Each structure stands twice: as C-alpha cells, then as structure tokens.
C-alpha cells in the first residue's frame, strides 16, 4: 500500500515539475501509439465495413481469422517483425529495427484485427438496417461503405479507441522491436518494465499512473471532440 502511495506522490512531482525524461517518454508513447492507431484505422475501418456488406467466397473464413488474430500474442508479433526487419531479414536494408517506426509497424499488426473485428460487428447491424434502402437507391459498393462509415462513425470511434487502448498499454512487441533504448525508443510501458526490474517501484508506479492518466485523457478528449453522448439517440 505504501508503495502505491509513494508512487502517486512521485507521479505527482514528476508531472508538476515537467520532468524532461517523463515528458519525452510520454510523448514518444503517444507518438507511436497514435501513429499506429491512425494507420490501423485507415486499414481496418474500410476492411471491417467491407466484410459486413460484401458476400464472397471465403468471407466466413476471413472473419474467423480476423477474430482469431485479435488474440495475437504481442511477443510473437514482435519476434516476427524483429526477424523481418533485422539486418539479415527481407526488410533489413531499410534499417528500421530499433526505431519508433518498427514499433509502429508492430502495433499496427496487433491492433488492426481488433479494430476491424469490432468494426465488422457494428457495421453488420447498421447494414441490416440500411440494406434495403441502399440497394433500392442503386448505390455503388464504395458509396455503401462511405455511407455506413459516416453514419456508424460513433461505433467506429469505439472500435478505434479499443485499438488505441491496446496499443498504448502494449509492451511485449515494442520491447523486442524497439529495444527500450534511452532517448530513442523508450516508451512508458517499456520504462515501467525496466524500472520494475531495477526495483524502483516508485518511479515505475509513477510512470504507470501517467500512462493511465494519458489513456483516460485521450479517450475523454476524443469523445468530447466528437460530441458523443450529446444527442438524444446515443
């Protein structure tokens, strides 16, 4: 209990004194996870919507696969990305290993299935509602996807935030591909793992509280910006 209190106190001091290391680490965490979120959303939102409205041969298989990939172990993703990006790997020439870019790649792989799968669930319901009308209006496939994404944007926001939650709290993959290098690839989660290993629980806890505050702050501000929960329907 004492440790937790101490952690809160040092978290407070780290924040109010604008500790340079903390700021840098937090910003890097945000930068990596938000980039991963944007890239994953650009892929997953249309993909999930497409799966909801289009009947094709291997659709069921694709959806089961997607659901299975939601549980992809980050450590394994990290390992595979590591091998692909390592000097001797196929993308070794790009020199991306141990850079924030590698961490973004790993996180995109981890959260894309999650966002796509939640999107698919939400869009399936909306499509059931809109189906007859959009067919009757003679819409093209692309117009249907656009309409569903726009009218289901609040559900999609939830899907994206779930992805962000997973990305910002993820440690296994970015530890492997990022390497937790001070001033280069150290982020909140890897720093927490390191400080815990060193036995500096106060600092680890402080970083942990900052991480939680960050996650809550991002969620609230996105909801506020997108004006969810304001109109009667939602």
């Amino acid at each position, binding site marked *: 209990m004492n440790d937790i209190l101490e952690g809160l106190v040092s978290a407070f001091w780290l924040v109010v004194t604008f500790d340079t290391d903390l700021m840098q680490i937090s910003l890097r965490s945000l930068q990596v996870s938000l980039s991963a979120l944007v890239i994953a959303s650009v892929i997953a939102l249309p993909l999930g919507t497409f799966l909801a409205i289009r009947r094709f041969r291997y659709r069921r298989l694709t959806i089961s696969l997607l659901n299975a990939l939601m549980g992809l172990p980050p450590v394994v993703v990290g390992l595979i990305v590591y091998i692909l990006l390592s000097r001797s790997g196929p993308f070794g020439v790009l020199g991306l290993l141990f850079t924030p870019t590698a961490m973004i790649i790993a996180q995109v792989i981890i959260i894309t299935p999650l966002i796509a799968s939640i999107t698919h669930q939400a869009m399936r319901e*909306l499509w059931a*509602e*809109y189906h*007859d*009308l959009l*067919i*009757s*209006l*003679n*819409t093209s496939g692309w*117009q249907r996807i656009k*309409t569903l994404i726009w*009218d*289901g944007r609040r559900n999609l926001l939830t899907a994206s935030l779930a992805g962000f939650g997973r990305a910002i709290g993820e440690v296994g993959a970015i530890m492997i591909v990022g390497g937790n290098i001070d001033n280069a690839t150290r982020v909140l989660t890897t720093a927490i793992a390191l400080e815990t290993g060193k036995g500096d629980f106060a600092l680890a806890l402080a970083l942990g509280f900052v991480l939680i505050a960050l996650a809550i702050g991002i969620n609230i501000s996105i909801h506020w910006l997108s004006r969810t929960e304001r*109109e*009667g*329907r939602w």
Partner: protein
Amino acid sequence: MSMMLPLTLKDVVVRRRGKRLLGPVNLTLRPEGLTMIVGPNGSGKTTLLRVMHGVERLSDGSATWAVAEEEARHRQAYVFQTPIMLRRTVADNLRYPLQLIATPRAEIETSVNHWARRIGLEARMGLQATRLSGGEKQKLALARALIRKPDVLFLDEPCANLDGASTRDIESILQTALTEKTRIIMTTHDLGQARRLAGDALFMLHGVVHERGPASDFFSTPQTAELQAFFRGDIIA
C-alpha cells in the same frame, strides 16, 4: 409518360428454401396511372413489388423494362413498409439520394427545400430523422423517394399504421405525382384507399395474380369468388 414502360414479367417464380413465394406470374404493366395490389397477408404482394423493383432474386422467368436495365434501375424508387431512416438529420436524409448521383449543390438545396415544405417538415430540418414520429418518417421516406423525380414509384403499404391526417397527406402527394406522370405501383390493406387511388388493380392470392382489371370493374363487379369474399371482409384461406 415514361419510356421505361411497359414492364413485362414472364413466368416469374420466386422460391426461398424450397417454398414457392411467388408465381408463376405473367404480367404487363401499361405505361400510365396507378396500379393497386391487394390481397391477404403472405399472398406475395411485397415479393411481387420487389421483383418489379429488381431487388428480389428470381428463381425462374424474367422481368424486363422497355429500356436497358441499368437505366431502369436509375429511374425508379421504392418506399418500404417500415420507413428506413438514415441516422442523419431530416435535411441530410433528403439530400442523400441526390448526392449519390452527384447533383450540383444549389440544385440539391432547391429540391430539399421544396420537399421539406411539401411534407411540412421545414421547421425540423435539423432534427435527427430517427426521432420523427411514424407518420413523419413515412412522409420523409416518400419525399426522399420522389426527390430524384423517378419515372416509376413503388410503395409497400405506405399508410400502414398511419392516422387519417397522415394518410391524407400521403395520398395528396401521390395524386400530385400522378398528375406529373409518375407511374405508381403500390400495395395496400386499406380498401378505401385502394378505391380512392387505383387506376387498375391486381388481386394476389397464394403467390399468383388471381384477378386483375381496371379499377371501375375490379371494385364494383369482382369476377372470382375469392375476390368477392375478400371485399366482403371474409378470411380467405
């Protein structure tokens, strides 16, 4: 008068899971007026309407317009029994069909304002369409269907569950559309409405067209025993 018609249905059959829902139906729709489809529940009225609109998969037979199918698809509209509201404002619901066909913005706004006034919702344009009352939703659905000025309009029991005033508003919009040469094909359970609007009529029973004729004869001198029973209000098995 529309160049799209006549619409010819030839030996149309619709089967789902081994059960015959419709057909065989052979039918030619002449180019003008309002065709009313009546009949008991499950007699195939909606399926027939959907076949004509081209959104039902045919198990057999064919439905052909006088113009190419792609063109025909563009020039018709359908109003569903339960109005489907986009989760947008009233104004955006009206804009939507025009935006799909890339209508110039100024033209869209003119049409939207015209139709909002026509259905009496001009004060509620900014409201979410899903929050309208049942009658308002159905009027909005009708306006959204007519906003592209379709040559052919299908309506599936547009006045089910509506009160007298809303029914009158909808019938008045349909009358206007008729004078502007829109071809209308609709189903109804309201025989009063059928008499008020119909130019000719079809009686559906067990998935086939049991009797048809111009409204004058159809309602006053029904030929088949089943249609006579239907008009008397008997329950037809």
